């Protein structure tokens, strides 16, 4: 077993707990959906592209965003739903960019399929815009080396993993996820950092994600 590097500055695990804030805004047609996507706060775009990850931990593969789900299941626009599903969220480093991509995808579909503008959601099936309000708290867990890091990963909540992988990068606009950043900058392990930052965390469940990172770290210190 290689000697473990211990850092002076440990990794401090935080957790992110969220509260859903209602905006009172709702869309019945694709046109309304598009207009509201352009004007709602970034925290609403964030909510609708990340909610499923936390609420449907047992579904795999996850429906990646609420817009795709509504367009497909309520309006019956399967092709647009597929285009929205396949937006590669990991490629976008800011909510602004992600919002622009979602809006331009719907716009281009409406240009090609003007009849889609005529479809209405039934009463009770409108799209309701919600915002995520995040509360970030430090937990009591810290790690000075990879062994401690792997042990904490086994114990912390899914919310903590979620925060360091998804929220820190996209919502707080950090260049990479927190785990990869610490491993590269504090432990100097560029290879492991690259491995952790290069896979797409949007394609599995959060529990799968936890297992995958633990496996990578444990393989590294074996």
């Amino acid at each position: 077993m290689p000697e473990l590097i211990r850092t002076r500055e440990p990794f401090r695990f935080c957790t992110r707990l969220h509260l859903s804030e209602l905006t009172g805004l709702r869309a019945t047609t694709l046109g309304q959906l598009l207009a509201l996507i352009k004007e709602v706060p970034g925290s609403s775009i964030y909510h609708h592209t990340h909610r499923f990850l936390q609420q449907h931990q047992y579904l795999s593969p996850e429906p990646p965003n609420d817009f795709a789900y509504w367009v497909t299941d309520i309006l019956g626009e399967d092709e647009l739903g597929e285009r929205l599903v396949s937006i590669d969220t990991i490629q976008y480093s800011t909510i602004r960019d992600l919002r622009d991509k979602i809006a331009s995808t719907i716009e281009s579909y409406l240009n090609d399929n003007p009849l889609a503008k005529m479809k209405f959601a039934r009463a009770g099936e409108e799209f309701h815009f919600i915002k995520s309000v995040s509360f970030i708290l430090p937990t009591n867990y810290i790690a000075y080396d990879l062994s401690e890091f792997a042990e904490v990963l086994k114990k912390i909540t899914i919310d903590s993993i979620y925060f360091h992988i998804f929220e820190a990068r996209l919502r707080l606009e950090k260049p990479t996820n927190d785990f990869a950043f610490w491993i590269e900058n504090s432990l100097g392990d560029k290879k492991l950092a690259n491995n952790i930052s290069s896979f797409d965390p949007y394609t599995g469940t959060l529990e799968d994600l936890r297992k995958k990172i633990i496996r990578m770290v444990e393989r590294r210190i074996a």
Partner: protein
Amino acid sequence: MAEIERYIPLVGQSIIDDLKLLGERLKGKVIQHVNSTPVGGGVAEILSHMVPLLRELGVDTKWDVIKGGEQFFGVTKKFHNALHGRTEEITQRDFEVFMETSQQNIENLDTYGDVVFIHDPQPIALVKKRSANKWLWRCHIDVSNPNEKVWGFLMDFIAQFDSAVFSAPAFSRKLPIRQFLIPPSIDPLSDKNKELPQEMIDSVLKKYDIKKDKPIITQISRFDRLKDPIGVIEAYLQVKKYINCQLILAGGTAEDDPEGFKVLGEVKEKAKNDPDIHILILPQNDIEINALQRASDIIIQKSIREGFGLTVAEALWKAKPVVASNVGGIPLQIKHKYSGLLCHSVQGASFAIKQLLSSPEYAKKLGENGREHIKNNFLITRHLRDYMLLFLSLYHPEDVVHLC
């Protein structure tokens, strides 16, 4: 062992650790819940479980109940129905009755909390005495299509709160105050939801003379028109033409629901010629309700309107296949054909029941998926977390709150 620790085997240590972290952030604040009944109905049930747990987490939590006579609760029941979209004749006198009792409560009830948390419309007028403290209004009702006269009357009060809380996105409307989505929850360790030995389930069936010789379909609900017990009997009768089965309609009445006895009479009349329809009055007998749910093959919740429909969560937690109306908070709990079946009519309900009775493996899978969904999203531990975040939000208006 502290009560909160008993949830660790169900949800994990780290979830409970998070709750304790939040509790520490609320030290020194007094949270005062106010509602209209100490027992009966979903609100009192949730509060009776949440208040002691919040206290254990270090949140100084109190619970007060307003006073009101038969006339007042008659009016608030009309308000309740009207907010749910039912046609009700609301007179000026009704508003006067509401305000007369409200004025007495304003004079007699001390609103001492740092956060005063008002549940539903009955105590809403207390906000008139707000001072520098924070005020929350929790709406447990489906107000997606309310009677505008009643809603307009309430809006004068709602606008004076800091924030409002709704159970489902469809209930939200444009408001001049912040509004949050917090679905209610079930307590997996309560008498209504805990595991029961088979002998206890059998003894409850025996007590009510129900034999397990044919499939049991059950609706657990107050006897209330919005729960459509008559529609349940009609759906059952359609199923019965093809599959020999029995129906249980069980529930109590709440102190603030004077209409319940009238509806019960109508249900008894509709069921009187069928010995396979069991109408059971179970006021606050949670163990028996638990046993009946566990003894059932299918749980139905054919509500016309629903604040949330906690009976659906209760049934899914017991991994039961559920047929329920696509109203209120029910679609948050059931993803159609994945964790239950949603319906819109008597015909739809009877078709879904037939389908489940004919395909037990499919029914089993729906129940298992449903239990997992409830575990992740609708247990009391999630609800405690949301409420504590809600209290913190009163002191932090931003979208990303750093509590480091």
